[in-house]
């Protein structure tokens, strides 16, 4: 199927970023964006494990109406820590800090990011923030919900809120510095000939993501700082007993935390926009619309936050404004889905694992996005707000969307990162397992939500049990789907076949250099003289460029 079956036996390049220097210091003090990306890969995977263990315990606990496993206090800590670990320490840094870090400089033909030391610093900030949060987890845990609503978090909770808040505050600067680095890099470091409209859509998506990072993160940082100060020094910013307004906390919190959803999903959309044209071997349909919609999502995404607050008693005017704007942000997402689908038309579609992930992403993201319309709809949100409908919706976006894109992206660029190929059949099995397991886990939760099961319940009325059991059963399939890639990808690092510079083959600049790339990314500064995703004028790819498709599978 894939070109790799017929590719010649490649050898790894003699010098590359992995063997340039040795020793622990050469990694911990590196300023090479590719090595920093791998540092992130390790630490982010660690937090994914932690969050995943919490998720597993949550699902097991919910097998019976009265709660099968743990006490209410423990359950509350489990879902809070699951949320904090997954959102702040896995989803937000996952694609930008790993794939973005690794690929953006190579994709635009630069030797590194504009500020390599700041890049390393942002990883250390992430680690320090992570340590604070782990400290919170291990000394009493955290039971406020990842949203830290006041005055529960700032006054009433008896858990280790303060270190967690400090950890997330610190971690915010990691995000800000990464975003800053990307924006400057894209502006000033592009290779000759790499015009804005020749940028890969992955880079566009990360540019949009970076906008959200630098504009939103400082607001949540100051908000959590205020909540932390309120808790430590008994101040009254958000404490109604002292005249503060808890709803103001929600405004400030969601000003970041809604756009943060776009930090998670936009990079994933960027990954999909790379995978689909590569495995359909044709230019992406509507390049400028996909690029523009990324920016539109980032900008409009900032105008919708109070749709998380329709039933807080916010003014009807605010609710109408925010609901209206929320419907507008749906349009650029829809544009992307339509364009990806149209790209498949008359393609030459391979069934490689990255493509399976990408198509799975479109399906799940479509469901996740469309169910967002339900929640943005004022009349419906009165009923489904804070129920399992919300849980299902955002897991479709974040797990079905962001994580599928992340895992798909890892599969797509694994040969570039490690220089090795992974087992083909196994990788396709994993993709399908993930897709099936995911739907089994989360689709029942839509129904649970409409039936009225509120979220964050350690026990529930017995009529909700059937759907909960179904969901837990699905979760076990899902867990298997995550474990498989971890095993065979690790295996492939040592035993996988050598990939060669461009195994798929793909058109991006990153595939013009060695796999793994040399420390300086390119032996000579590249000159870009082709349009993005153009297979027809690229004889260097060794494909049937310019040749009309064979009648057997061409015109319809």
């Amino acid at each position, binding site marked *: 199927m894939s070109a790799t079956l017929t590719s010649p036996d490649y050898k790894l390049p003699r010098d590359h970023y992995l063997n340039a220097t040795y020793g622990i210091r050469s990694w911990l003090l590196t300023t090479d964006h590719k090595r920093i990306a791998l540092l992130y890969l390790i630490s982010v995977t660690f937090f994914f494990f932690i969050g995943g263990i919490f998720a597993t315990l949550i699902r097991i606990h919910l097998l019976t109406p009265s709660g099968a496993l743990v006490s209410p206090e423990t359950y509350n800590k489990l879902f809070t820590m699951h949320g904090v670990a997954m959102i702040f320490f896995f989803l937000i840094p996952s694609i930008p800090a790993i794939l973005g870090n690794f690929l953006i400089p190579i994709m635009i033909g630069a030797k590194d990011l504009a500020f390599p030391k700041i890049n390393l610093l942002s990883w250390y900030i992430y680690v320090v923030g992570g340590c604070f949060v782990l400290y919170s987890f291990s000394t009493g845990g955290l039971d406020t919900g990842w949203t830290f609503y006041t005055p529960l978090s700032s006054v009433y909770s008896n858990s280790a809120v303060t270190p967690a808040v400090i950890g997330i505050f610190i971690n915010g600067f990691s995000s800000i510095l990464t975003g800053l680095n990307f924006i400057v890099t894209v502006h000033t470091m592009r290779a000759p000939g790499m015009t804005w409209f020749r940028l890969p859509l992955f880079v566009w998506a990360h540019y949009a993501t970076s906008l959200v990072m630098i504009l939103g993160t400082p607001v949540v940082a100051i908000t959590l700082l205020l909540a932390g100060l309120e808790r430590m020094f008994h101040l009254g910013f958000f404490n109604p007993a002292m005249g503060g307004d808890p709803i103001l906390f929600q405004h400030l919190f969601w000003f970041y935390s809604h756009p943060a959803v776009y930090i998670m999903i936009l990079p994933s959309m960027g990954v999909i926009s790379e995978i689909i044209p590569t495995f359909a071997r044709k230019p992406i349909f509507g390049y400028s619309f996909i690029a523009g919609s990324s920016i539109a999502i980032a900008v409009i995404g900032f105008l919708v936050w109070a749709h998380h607050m329709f039933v807080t008693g916010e*003014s009807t005017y605010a609710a109408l404004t*925010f609901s209206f704007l929320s419907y507008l942000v749906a349009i650029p997402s829809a544009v992307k889905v339509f364009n990806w689908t149209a790209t498949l038309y008359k393609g030459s579609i391979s069934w490689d694992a990255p493509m399976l992930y990408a198509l799975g992403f479109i399906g799940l993201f479509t469901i996740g996005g469309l169910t967002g319309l339900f929640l943005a709809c004022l009349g419906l949100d009165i009923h489904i707000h804070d129920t399992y409908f919300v849980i299902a919706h955002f897991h479709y976006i974040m797990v079905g969307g962001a994580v599928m894109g992340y895992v798909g992206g890892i599969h797509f660029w694994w040969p570039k990162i490690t220089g090795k190929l992974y087992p083909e059949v196994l990788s396709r099995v994993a993709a399908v397992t993930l897709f099936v397991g995911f739907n089994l886990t989360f689709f029942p939760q839509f129904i649970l939500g409409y039936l009225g099961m509120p979220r964050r319940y350690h026990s529930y009325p017995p009529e909700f049990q059937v759907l909960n059991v179904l969901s837990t059963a699905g979760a076990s399939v899902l867990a298997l789907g995550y474990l498989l890639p971890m095993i065979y990808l690790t295996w492939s690092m040592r035993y996988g076949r050598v990939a060669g510079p461009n195994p798929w083959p793909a058109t991006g600049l990153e595939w013009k250099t060695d796999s793994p790339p040399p420390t300086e990314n390119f032996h000579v500064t590249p000159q870009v003289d082709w349009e993005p995703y153009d297979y027809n004028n690229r004889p260097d790819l060794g494909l049937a460029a310019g040749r009309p498709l064979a009648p057997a599978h061409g015109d319809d």
Partner: protein
Amino acid sequence: MSERVVSPKIYIVILLALLLGTYATVQAALRDFGRWNIVIALAIASIKAILVILYFMHARYSPKRTQLVIVCAAFWLIILLALTATDYAKRSSDQSRLTPANSLYRS
């Protein structure tokens, strides 16, 4: 980069303008203009801030890109303030706040 060197004369003019603005805003604050006191204070502050940004920070002589960055900062700050105002400005009609005598304040 062939950047423009701003002459010290301009800096001195701006310095004087800023000092004048400070004097004006203090004087305005000591007089009663009702609701307009806030507007005047913020307007003078904004003029001063714009002078600093345009001349001390060279925004006037900077590339378009830098100017766009500044506009973005202002725009997002306005989003944050204005959209939150849609809630607070209209809220009182929908709900009442607790009276100050409420026991909650005593705790």
